């Protein structure tokens, strides 16, 4: 039985995800200048700006010294040819 309720959020596909297909970014960060820049996770975002914001707010477990996001499309896998990078933390 479907529940009816008012004010259901309307999703603006274009605005919220930049189109029909989701776009993914991998997130890299380092704690301080001595530590390695390493993969901390992955976010979905319609554009680079929102990807930056989402990465910063989702992966906020440390006060990162440096953080960057890389579009998944731009990652060329060497060991796992033809496959995309996977969510790998820490």
């Amino acid at each position, binding site marked *: *039985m*479907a*529940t009816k*309720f*008012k*004010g*259901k*959020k309307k*999703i603006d*596909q274009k605005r*919220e*995800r930049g189109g029909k297909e*989701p776009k*993914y970014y991998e997130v890299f960060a380092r704690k301080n200048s001595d530590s390695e820049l390493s993969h*901390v*996770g*992955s*976010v*979905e975002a319609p554009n680079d700006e929102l990807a930056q914001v*989402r990465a910063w*707010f*989702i*992966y*906020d*477990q440390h006060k990162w010294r440096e953080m960057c996001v890389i579009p998944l499309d731009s990652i060329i896998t060497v060991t*796992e040819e033809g*496959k995309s990078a*996977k*969510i*790998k*933390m*820490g």
Partner: protein
Amino acid sequence: MATAIKDIQEDPRELALQEKVATGYQLEDVEEMTDRYRDVLVNTIHIAADLEVVTLPTYSPAIKTSPTLEDKISIAAACQDELGHAQMMYRILEDFGYDTHSFLFDRDPEEWRTFQMLEFPHEDYIESVVSMCYGDRAGYITTVDLEENCSYAPFARSLRKVNYEETFHVAHGERWTKFFWNQSEGSRKRVQEMVDFYFPLCAAWFGMPDNLKTRTDQLSYRIRGASNDEMRQKWLSRIVPYSEGVGIKVPAHFDEEQGKFVLDYEAPIYLDEEKRKWDYDRQITWKEQLKVWKKGSQHKVPSIARVMSEEWGKDLW
């Protein structure tokens, strides 16, 4: 139906994968999975993700009533953590063809998979800290088990951050529960009232007793490592000494003869949802309990509908 499950159990590919993960092998790729493995894994992550999101409407009244700005901030921070956990889980689910947006906003609230422990909106800040102390501790035990044992490596790794943050929620809950226990007679009474309410909810978080459980796929595919009773025991071994140390009464104790913690009541028991009172002497059947869990409390649908319509704004502060 029975034959279908039997077929799966006897499928050599399924059995081979079960043997492989039993030796500690971890999968990195969706392509390595069998159909059954995939179903059990996706179902596990799906429920875990839903359970992160439904914490938000439970916290929202406490943001309004929390005594100081610091308390408001710490509750809001916990909400942000929980939504972050959900985002990561949904991100993993997208690799299995899930669409997070429609998953969050187009699903019928009744279809959401919630647990009774996370269905009651917190009426005040004391309720929030007690629920963090006892409930987040219960949740933490399940997510730590997944991090340590889950044979799908990307999920196990993603939980490192989740568990790191959960320790803050639990610590926050323990510190403030103890504070309110000692603050005044009134606050002590409220803490005890909330523990009386949350204890059976949290003990039930781990599900049915092992001897009554018929589906053990999560264990045979090593999605999880510990059984329901093992995790419940772990929870009791933290929560009972903590409570006794503070002075809070809990319906469980360490049984010297059995060498383990035991509940003082015979689960499942009857809950008066309206009054938020358990009748510790009134046992119900497991069939009745499962029905209650499946239906969800009166708060379930309105709370989820609120998340879906993003009705927060003016209510929050």
